[in-house]
């Protein structure tokens, strides 16, 4: 008790002496909290509003004054999108689930290809010297800066010639063009953070070079593989234009073109489109939030070194 009051007295004296700097300290904390709040609202409010609109009725969104807490919450939009409730644009909505499956297939296959092929190359770049190494690294850097769209006219004709137009295989091939250079780069940067002594001691212990890679280095490369894989999957899951242009036949396209197509139609309520948008965004957002630690680390190292 006495100690507390003594402490308080001391505190008062302290405050009295340094009241001006204390006031400044409080003002500074208040400013920081205020700015943090602004940043938080800026980052999250638009996406949160997408969710709010997706559980609202369109008529409430059109009301003035607008109520920011929906007067009525409904899951009707989601039921329409998932084909559980019939409505006038159900033909459009019926494309959502199949296209989601297409997106999942393409994104998964591209991710597996990237991890198999890109990781191995990244390892070689990080550890070995070989002819044309510098030149091919510059070529990789160049492909990262390339507008993907300039390749699409060529893909259009190439896939047509191969008989792969409007197929998921064709889309998978096209997606490798903008993911593979990234994966090699990210994995190279990641393997450079793993001490080379690890593979050296594996060689001393009797592994050959290939075993040193997949028995010793790969098992401790989880974070890098997760970063590269999750990033590739996210890019493919979100990709819009290539799928829109290459896979025009009904049933062959991915989710983003379907959502964009619904958005272009005036007879579909925004609340319904918002539901499909939120549903489509969720997998990528959850994936990124789940693996954020590895992804942030992998991508920042990959970029800063690039």
């Amino acid at each position: 008790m006495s100690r507390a009051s003594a402490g308080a007295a001391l505190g008062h004296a302290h405050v009295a002496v340094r009241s001006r700097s204390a006031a400044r300290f409080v003002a500074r904390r208040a400013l920081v909290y205020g700015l943090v709040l602004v940043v938080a609202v800026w980052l999250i409010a638009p996406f949160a509003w997408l969710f709010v609109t997706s559980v609202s009725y369109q008529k409430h969104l059109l009301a003035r004054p607008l109520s920011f807490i929906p007067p009525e919450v409904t899951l009707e939009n989601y039921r329409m999108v998932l084909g559980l409730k019939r409505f006038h644009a159900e033909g459009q909505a019926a494309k959502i689930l199949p296209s989601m499956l297409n997106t999942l297939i393409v994104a998964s296959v591209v991710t597996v290809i990237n991890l198999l092929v890109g990781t191995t190359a990244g390892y070689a770049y990080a550890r070995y010297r070989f002819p044309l190494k510098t030149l091919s690294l510059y070529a990789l850097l160049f492909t990262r800066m390339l507008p993907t769209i300039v390749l699409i006219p060529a893909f259009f004709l190439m896939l047509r010639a191969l008989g792969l137009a409007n197929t998921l295989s064709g889309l998978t091939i096209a997606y490798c063009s903008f993911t593979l250079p990234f994966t090699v780069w990210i994995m190279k940067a990641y393997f450079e953070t793993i001490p080379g002594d690890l593979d050296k001691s594996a060689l001393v212990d009797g592994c050959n070079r290939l075993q040193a890679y997949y028995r010793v280095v790969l098992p401790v490369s989880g974070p890098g593989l997760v970063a590269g894989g999750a990033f590739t999957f996210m890019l493919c899951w979100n990709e819009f234009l290539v799928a829109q242009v290459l896979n025009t036949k009904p049933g062959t396209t991915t989710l983003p073109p379907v959502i964009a197509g619904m958005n272009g139609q005036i007879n579909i309520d925004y609340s319904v489109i918002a539901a499909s948008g939120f549903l489509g965004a969720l997998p990528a957002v959850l994936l990124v939030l789940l693996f954020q630690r590895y992804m942030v680390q992998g991508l920042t190292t990959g970029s800063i070194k690039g």
Partner: protein
Amino acid sequence: MIAASGSRSTSGYAGVLRTLGGVGGHFGRVRAPLGAPHLTDASFAAFLVLPALLGILLVVGFPLLYSFWMSLAQVNLLRTTGPALEFFGIRLPLFKFVGIDNYASVFVDPLYWSSFWRTAYFVLAFVAETTVVGLGMALVLQESFPGRPLMRSLLLIPWSLSRVVVGLLWQGLLDGEFGALNGLLYNLGMIESYIAFFKQGFSALNVLVSVYMWNQAPFATLLFLAAMQSVPEDHYMAASVDGAGYWQRLWHVTLPAIRPVVFLVLVLATVNGFLMLDLIYVMTMGGPGHDTTTISWLGFQTAFAFFKFGTGTAILYTLTALCLALTFVYHRLLLRRFEADA
């Protein structure tokens, strides 16, 4: 920047290995007798790299050349006869070579030049906004406050959304009939009636810049934060002892230390600004009129709405050249800064 990190081994180490029965100078030029005795390290590495490089050659290199060829040809998509590349029974049409005709017609098109200047404005505004907001958010998140890790995860949300969804949700905020931002301003009595942000060309262009910035600035923030974390704490202490206030520390300690990353953000934002396409598709389709038509949109439209592949690829190739030239300039700048710091 592109470090030949394969040179890590020391000669002493290689010597030890050789005496240990010749397991091989890993990372060196000595042969490894185990596993693949006939392969040198260089061939082993080439074997690891080959699948990826071959793949990239097939899905990037070849299409890039083929597109370039189309930009020099008169492309008729319906024509199936005529000259063609044939291999393994696959037949790629080569069309009629017309030299630089496509480029010539692009460069006399006033729409190309108006799109060019619009693109320049777009890129400048986008780079400025992304750098300023990205740095601003990094400075705020660099402060200590409860829930800082959570805030850093929130950064990833705008960045992980598909541009289709980004366009969709900003439409929900800005629409002239149901936009929430309009609703907010209206409820606060700041506007009499809802604003149609997309009706006026210049306002639509600026909205595109800001929406794209909302999507991309968080990544710049992550890069800035990573760079700030590597600034030694005692530099700040020393500055504080010298009586430097917040802004002085920012100007004299933080910014010089993260300068390479600032340049990196400028490079990435410039390239991303030039390449932006999907948001235009979702939000404005290049309109009203041609008021949000950038070079990438013009090339895309020409190639895929009008199916003029020759002209379209020519337009897109001017964009590619522009991007690469700028990247080169920035990289030189970046390298010089690094050398100056060293």
